[in-house]
């Protein structure tokens, strides 16, 4: 592919001294090692070449070479290439340049590692606590490997999070954690002047459950998908798929085509129910409860369908490394066809009923406006970006599972407001129905749904996989570990970048619009706060019989 060469040459030419090595895992993934001093320049150069910032991954490598690693990842949407920029700093002086001043979206990632790994980023505009609780003591960095997963440090004395300075003459409206707008505990401090929003500070990560340390000695590769599903109760399969793909990429595992089709179907079913859910919640947020009730009524058969296929309404538990757990039989296919047929019909009615409703237009048009340039600068993803005329979609740009064979449109609107996100989601639901139909038609009839893992997954391989969740791009980064478990697993949910763009969207809007604007990104705070960074330190607990049991369990089918 010419793209990858171009990038490689560009980096090598511009930063001869800084670039240590360039590794191409496959035509769509490249890993670049650089020296930490030049990280900001190289990042800027990558962005200048058309790279879109995804997420940063920090990891504890002290046991091996006494360093803390940092990986900035970028995506080249036109070429379909993901690039990971790897660097490291010594543990004794864990300081590197912040890339946030140029790439604002990196702000949270870097703050996260200030908390969790004790890294320092010089030049960070807002080096405040992000993830850990207010009363968490200083100097305890739970992602370091010498801290046990169940450490409960005593509360620090007299600490309270210092909210940002309130603009002159404004007062703070505290939104959350328990506010009917937010179904999850997150705190927005909204600075209002009259009823106009003049700024906002976010103190979230209250659903941060710190699963990485849990996984340190507890779980193996194939249990992680189940935990991954519980990152978020709505887009569970997305996380499981993304994780599995990352591990499969890192380990070089090839799964059967049929399994890929089933994964695609599950992902699209999830998209339908998520978008319908969002439509309802959006209606609820603007006080239109009938839309809420009706779209949830339409959604309900999808939940029943999921229950029939997988045995549970939302945490499907379908996807594991190597394929899927349950097959989709022919009766099930008919079942799916029926259900999506009804939904298409009913959704069409809903669409007609609300598309021309001027009352809804009033509440959504021109609300939450941000320009296309800002959207790109802040690396917003998913429907939020597509509603702001940024044409990105992982399914098309970086095809995975069976999407390379699917024909579908990516809706893009340019009114840059909440109404456009409504439209994007409506159209996407229809597209999802289209994709499921294609999948059902094209699905190969034979082939195992779960591929045999005959060889152990090699250690210290890096894998990066992205999946287009209903909310946008989910990125999973996995570093494989030695004992049947990942060493580092980083999840970036779509809400993570989008939430950072919310203050921008809120600016100069009315207070009454705050719920729908926050709602318009379809926030999933639990995704954002997940930190499901599996960090398996080669627990001594893995035993020989495990592999046998694994096999026993597979042979059952």
């Amino acid at each position: 592919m010419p793209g990858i060469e171009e990038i490689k040459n560009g980096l090598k030419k511009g930063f001869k001294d800084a670039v240590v090595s360039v590794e191409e895992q496959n035509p769509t993934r490249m890993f670049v090692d650089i020296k930490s001093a030049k990280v900001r320049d190289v990042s800027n150069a990558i962005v200048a070449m058309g790279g879109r910032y995804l997420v940063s991954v920090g990891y504890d490598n002290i046991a091996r070479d006494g360093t803390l690693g940092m990986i900035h990842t970028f995506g080249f949407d036109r070429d379909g290439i993901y690039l990971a920029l790897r660097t490291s700093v010594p543990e004794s002086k864990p300081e590197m340049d912040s890339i946030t001043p140029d790439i604002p979206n990196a702000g949270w990632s870097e703050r996260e590692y200030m908390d969790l790994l004790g890294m320092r980023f010089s030049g960070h505009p807002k080096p405040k606590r992000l993830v850990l609780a207010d009363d968490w003591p200083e100097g305890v960095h739970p992602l370091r490997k010498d801290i046990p997963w169940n450490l409960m440090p005593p509360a620090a004395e007299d600490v309270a999070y210092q909210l940002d300075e309130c603009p002159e003459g404004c007062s703070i409206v505290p939104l959350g954690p328990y506010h009917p707008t937010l179904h999850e505990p997150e705190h927005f401090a909204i600075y209002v002047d009259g009823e106009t929003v003049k700024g906002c500070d976010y103190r979230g990560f209250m659903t941060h459950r710190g699963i990485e340390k849990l996984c340190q000695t507890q779980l193996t590769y194939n249990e992680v998908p189940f935990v991954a599903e519980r990152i978020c109760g709505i887009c569970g399969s997305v996380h499981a798929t993304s994780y599995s793909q990352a591990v499969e990429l890192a380990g070089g595992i090839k799964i059967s085509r049929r399994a890929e089709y089933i994964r695609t179907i599950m992902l699209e079913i999830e998209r339908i129910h998520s978008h319908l859910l969002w439509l309802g919640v959006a209606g609820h947020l603007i006080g239109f409860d009938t839309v809420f009730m009706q779209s949830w009524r339409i959604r309900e058969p999808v939940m029943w369908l999921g229950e029939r296929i997988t045995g549970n309404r939302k945490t499907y538990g379908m996807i594991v490394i190597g394929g899927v757990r349950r097959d989709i039989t022919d009766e099930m296919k008919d079942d799916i066809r029926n259900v999506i047929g009804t939904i298409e019909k009913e959704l069409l009615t809903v669409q007609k009923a609300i598309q021309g409703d001027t009352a809804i237009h009033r509440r959504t048009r021109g609300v939450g406006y941000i320009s296309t340039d800002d959207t790109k600068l802040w690396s917003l993803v998913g429907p939020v970006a597509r509603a702001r005329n940024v044409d990105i979609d992982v399914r098309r740009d970086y095809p995975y599972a069976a999407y390379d064979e699917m024909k579908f449109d990516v809706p893009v609107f340019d009114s840059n407001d909440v109404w456009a996100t409504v439209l994007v989601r409506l159209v996407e639901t229809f597209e999802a129905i289209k994709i499921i139909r294609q999948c059902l038609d094209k699905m190969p009839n034979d082939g195992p749904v779960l591929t045999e893992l005959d060889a152990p997954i090699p250690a210290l391989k890096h894998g990066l996989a992205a999946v287009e969740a209903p909310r946008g791009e989910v990125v999973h980064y996995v570093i494989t570990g030695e004992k049947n478990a990942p060493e580092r697993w980083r999840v970036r949910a779509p809400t993570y970048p989008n939430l950072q763009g919310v203050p921008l969207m809120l600016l100069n809007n009315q207070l009454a619009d705050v719920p729908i604007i926050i709602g318009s990104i379809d926030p999933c705070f639990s995704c954002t706060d997940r930190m499901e960074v599996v960090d398996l330190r080669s627990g001594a607990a893995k035993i020989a019989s495990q592999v046998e049991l694994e096999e026993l369990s597979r042979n059952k089918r």
Partner: protein
Amino acid sequence: MSDLYGKLILAMAILLCSAVVVPFIAEKRKLAGWLNFIFVAVAGAILLSISYSVIFVKSLPSRLVSVGPLDIYFLLDGFSGFFLGIISLMAIVSAFYSIEYMEHYGDYGLRSYYANYPIFVLGMAGIVTVDDLTTGFSIAWQAMTITSYFLVRFEHRKKEIVKAANKYLVLMELAWLFIVIAALAAGSSMGDSVHSVTRLIGETGGALPYLIYGLVFLGFGFKAAVFPFGQMWLPDAHSIAPSPISALLSGVMIKTGVYGIIRSFFWMVPHSDTFHFSGAFWGALIASFGVVTLFIGTVQSMKQSQSKRLLAYSSIGQVGYIIFGIGAALFMVNAESAALKMLGLIALVGVVYHILNHAVFKGLLFLTSGSVLYSTGTKDLNRLGGLINLMPVTAFVAGIASLSISGVPPFSGFVSKWTLVSTSLLAGSEVLFLVIFGIVALFTSAVTLACYVKFFGMTFTSAGAEWGVGREVREVPAGMLIPKLFLTALCLLQGLIPFFYFQTIIGIFAGSGGSLISAAFRNLNVQGHVFNSAMGVSVGIPGLSAVSSIAVPAVLLAVFAAAFVVVAFLRKSGGSKEREVPTWLCGYQDLHDKNRYRDKSMFAALKNLLYWTGGNVKE
């Protein structure tokens, strides 16, 4: 009865005497205060007795009285007696309030205050009793203006206060010029009585009377703070003066302008064959000015973030009601139809009633905000809040005054507003614009309510004084509570027994000779169409339905009380226990200074809609 004029001069002499004597002992602040109060009280008592005599016993004709080297016409009829009563009442109350309150200004000497206070009162008493527009008027006006100028610039070390006071002085002198010019333009010479001015106007014709009336309206309009003149000086002057003075300025002084307008347009009207006074024109004009004033003034008041500025702007709004009433009355009295004439007279009663009400509750409100200033040291609403538990009596008083000024039944503002609004509405079947004006007045009374919800809410309820005020807040001493409680009682009385005031006011008008309306009051048998009873007032207008409008605060109060008992029983019936809990702000933040609600946010949508009304908001 002629000795009443002597009494008047005596009272004025006592006031003068006080102005000379008290400053000498001004170092002993309390003593000076007491002395001043005693002087003012004695003078006030004399004035009150005069006003009682002229209201209830008999009005006097105008009379030339020699004051020193000058001969000045004085007039003591029921109408001026009414104003004299208000002035002396408020002067006494303010003087009593000053005793304690002036402790607040520890670093300012009280010499100038006690020198100016009695003369200020004297000036006001003069304005409403002199019967000319030249010599006597000028003396009284200057006495009132210059002393009030010094009172306003009491805190003379602050630049902006001196600046505002200067502006006040210049504008008041301008107003004086207008009036004197008007009098001279009519051809009268210095010292002529109003009666002769009237005669002179009657002999002229063409455009000149329009000029004269226009100048008079302009001059008194300046004083009465009619839009747009009021906005130029009133909010600044009233908000910076010491609170008892603010109470006098807002409660009484601007009423002298109203007095002037009523006197000029109802008394200074010649009835000759050659001259036809176009009452409809002037009525409509004044009513329009009034409606604009009441609307703009009140809306601007809603935007203020300082308690005293809010009250000052609200004074403009309330004066707007009065001016509107005068205009409407003037219009209707000069109309052909008997029903309209009747309505006009009743509106006039409402006007006078509202003057009384406003003097009482606005004085009360200024005293209240003075008390708050005294104990918290601030008049910024954004720094106040939650005083209801710290200053319960003041809070109660402020609540009553706020309800009264908003016109909530059965408080005093309701009856006067009811009279003004209902007359203009009833006139509606014949005169459309009066209905519209009435509706604007109704609308504005809701805005007034908003102002006072804001004033009361942000000062006494809600929370904030604990952060905004850097000291312990305590209830003010009894010396400041007593005047307020006295005014509160008066205020409640005015709301609950409107019939008494109606009767009195009708009596005043009927008894004050020399104008068309006193005849009309007698001829049309107003007394007979206003059904007064212990329960309230109802108005029946010939030509309209039998009983056209009713205000019966007492019955409503009884029904309300009965309902309240039922409701209280309902509340207790579940045996619910009470527990005090912290404010729920979604859990993460506790209530603190940063997230309290600020005045900017209050009614933001409405303020945005009405942004064009302006209003000089000062932090």
